[in-house]
């Protein structure tokens, strides 16, 4: 493979404490190296910003509910779909883009890795086919465990070793990456028309609480020593006053130490925290509780989180939290779909408009940014929109801009119809912090790489790491004062080299790259009981046979398998 030298850029690599030093980055055979020969292709990055490829720790980009959203919303493509040209594919849609647009737009922003945040195990073959159909970016997917019948049965009896054996089997069968938990217990309760809104609500039939599910899965995760921690979408999402349940859930991590060989330090990743940091007793007195939540996280070092920041767009919400989507449909009366996935999970999809003329939307926007601006450890706080729930991932550059520029935030507040009410219910207007390029790199590179246990590949530019390098047309010594110019530079990178291949030049796609699918293969001691339970349950309760359940190798044709050996 050709050698590439990215010369004289201002490099931001928080994994090695490099803060804008002017230096070269050399790439050979897809990896960063110390130096390359004189025949290397030279990219002049002088006066520009250089970072490692970005990492999205949580986005819904592949799978049945994404497709349900696409099918349900043809209007999402209207006037928003660029024609095909020059050997590249048509790019369709906005909030639920086609697979090709997904790959292209992430690459244009300089992203190298994206985590599909909720994979129903039964539909994992589809998830992997769709991942394979998404060009350029490396991806992995988190199967959902928080409402799984096996998990609840074993946890009810306190059988962590059995949960671990089942988890290891399911990760392998679904080619999954780690343990995702969505509305633990609540989605199962939805099968009875119920929900679990606090940690102590009992799940019908299983007689287990969300608290027991989360604690049990945290224990399981550390027993197995997986690269990522438990990744949780908490109970009571999106309701005023839910911050108490949020903090109660975060407390479940207290006293637990991360045990793994991947350099991960957290035992709980709390996702799209914006949706979980709400105060008030209803929408009338709805207010931010971002400070209460972040204050706790600032003190509690074994937790990471991502923002789930609202971008004020028309978007499509989709989650494995079926009851929440039904509730949301009751609020906005738009079209709605809900689906149950046998013994495993459920999902719902509802279009949603975060309108600047609605007070609640303005407050939600403020909460997402407050979480970032009040956080003291940027290596534990990651930028997401819970794509497409709080907004499409293509708005990440706008979120960087809001975080980096008080001027940009003030302009947005001014554009609100009820700006005074939004200011009164939030802290955003009184925060003058402006994040630096170094901090943005922590939130989108070094931090998420560490949280996912992927520091050997991503998040930095040390020799041996993947040759994922992005050049933004931004001079750190002279950043544009116009927020729109800052956003535009992040939206369309000058160059993006993905695993040693130039995939973007001046914001245009140059190659379909060399995407990989990452998954975790956990080797655990033979567990005859779990093996028998799986066998029996498939015969008794599943609509598919066990032999048709696993993701065949051909569905994930470019795998990068991370092996984890769990001692007996």
């Amino acid at each position, binding site marked *: 493979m050709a050698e590439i030298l990215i010369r004289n850029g201002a490099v931001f690599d928080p994994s090695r404490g490099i803060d804008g030093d002017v230096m070269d980055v050399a790439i050979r055979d897809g990896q960063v190296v110390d130096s390359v020969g004189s025949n290397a292709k030279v990219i002049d990055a002088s006066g520009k910003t250089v970072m490692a490829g970005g990492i999205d720790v949580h986005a819904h980009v592949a799978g049945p509910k994404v497709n349900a959203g696409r099918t*349900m*919303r*043809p*209007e*999402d493509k*209207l006037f928003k779909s660029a*024609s095909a040209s020059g050997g590249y594919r048509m790019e369709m849609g906005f909030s639920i883009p086609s697979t090709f647009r997904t790959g292209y737009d992430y690459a244009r922003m300089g992203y190298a890795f994206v985590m599909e945040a909720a994979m129903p195990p039964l539909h994992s073959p589809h998830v992997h086919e769709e991942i394979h159909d998404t060009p350029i970016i490396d991806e992995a997917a988190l199967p959902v465990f928080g409402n799984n019948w096996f998990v609840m049965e074993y946890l009810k009896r306190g059988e962590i070793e059995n949960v671990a054996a089942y988890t290891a089997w399911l990760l392998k069968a679904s080619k999954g990456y780690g343990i995702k938990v969505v509305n633990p217990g609540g989605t199962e309760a939805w099968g009875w028309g119920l929900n679990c809104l606090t940690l102590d609500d009992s799940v019908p039939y299983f007689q287990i609480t969300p608290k027991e599910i989360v604690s049990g899965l945290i224990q399981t995760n550390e027993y197995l020593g997986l690269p990522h921690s438990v990744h949780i979408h908490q109970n009571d999402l999106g309701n005023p006053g839910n911050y108490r349940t949020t903090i109660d859930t975060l407390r479940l991590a207290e006293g637990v130490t991360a045990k793994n060989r991947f350099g991960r330090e957290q035992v709980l990743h709390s996702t799209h925290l914006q949706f979980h940091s709400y105060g008030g007793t209803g929408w009338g007195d709805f207010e931010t509780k971002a400070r209460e939540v972040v204050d706790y996280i600032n003190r509690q070092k074994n937790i990471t989180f991502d923002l789930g920041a609202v971008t004020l767009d028309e978007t499509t919400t989709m989650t494995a939290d079926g009851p929440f989507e039904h509730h949301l449909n009751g609020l906005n*009366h*738009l*079209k709605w779909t809900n689906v149950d996935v046998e013994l495993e999970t459920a999902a719902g999809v509802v279009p949603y408009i975060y309108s600047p003329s609605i007070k609640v939307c303005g407050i939600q926007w403020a909460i997402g940014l407050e979480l970032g601006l009040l956080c003291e450890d940027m290596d534990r706080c990651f930028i997401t929109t819970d794509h497409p729930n709080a907004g499409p991932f293509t708005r990440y550059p706008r979120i960087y801009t809001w975080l980096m520029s008080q001027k940009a935030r003030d302009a947005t507040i001014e554009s609100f119809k009820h700006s005074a009410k939004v200011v009164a219910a939030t802290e955003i207007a009184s925060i003058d912090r402006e994040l630096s390029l170094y901090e943005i790199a922590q939130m989108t590179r070094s931090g998420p790489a560490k949280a996912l246990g992927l520091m050997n590949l991503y998040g930095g530019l040390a020799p041996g790491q993947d040759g994922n390098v992005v050049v933004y047309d931004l001079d750190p010594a002279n950043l544009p004062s116009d927020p729109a110019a800052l956003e535009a530079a992040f939206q369309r990178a000058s160059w993006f080299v993905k695993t040693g291949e130039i995939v973007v030049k001046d914001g245009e796609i140059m190659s379909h790259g060399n995407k990989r699918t990452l998954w975790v293969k956990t080797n655990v001691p033979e567990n005859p009981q779990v093996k028998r339970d799986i066998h029996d349950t498939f015969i008794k309760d599943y609509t598919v046979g066990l032999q048709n359940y696993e993701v065949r190798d051909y569905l994930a044709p470019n795998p990068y398998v991370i092996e984890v050996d769990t001692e007996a």
Partner: protein
Amino acid sequence: MPTVTLKPIAEPELCLDCYAISPDAIAGLAESEIADLDVWEGKVKHRLGDFFAVSGNAGQTPDETHIVVDGDASRMKYIGYKMTGGLVTVKGSADMYVGGWMKGGKVHVMGNVDSFCGIQMEGGEILVDGRAQNHVGCAYRGDWRGMRGGTLRIRGDAGNDIGTFINGGTIIVEGNAFIHVSTHGEGGTVIVKGDVQGRVGGQMVKGDVYVLGEIQHMLPGFKKVETIEKEVDGGTYRLDHYVGDLGERHPTSKGQPVYGNLYVRAAT
């Protein structure tokens, strides 16, 4: 008003997407520049001048521009697409999407139009002397935001799905209509002067529908409340007033639920 005349000179093999036949697209352009504008036959790009002889220069703004399509355009789609002002006259028939997404100005088609005439229009006026096919003044597929303003008058008959998700504005069908009128309506007015087979006002939340002829099959979700005399589009009629669709959610105003209104010619 400066007038640009487009005389059809060639028939496309597929339907032609004529986004360029709109005062907004040609305002400020001279004859030769107009002939160079893009039209699409599937994914193949052509010049407008390949299919039309262009004569005359456009006005400086859309409001000052009149386009005359001097002949049959029944294979030309998107005439008056997204226009905000000015005038378009089609001396023959036109294909689908006439006046789609238009905000202002006026389109007059002297022949018939195909489907999706006035789709999601927000303002202005469309007049069709002949018949219309389906989806008159409807929402784009999947969208819940239909016609929001303006006036759309069909002098002949129309097909199905008239004013789906209508939110504002007025649709007048002077002839008969087939089925599905004002389905999911959230406002606006639809007047059908002739008969409708059925499915009028299904899932309608708000807005008015007038059927001055007969509805062959009424939907069960409507309740008769009174018989009144009312003036509709210049004539006075004795009408049975129904409210509905009672199976749908309805907003409240001053403590009272707001219903969709359906007026049907009363039996004499």
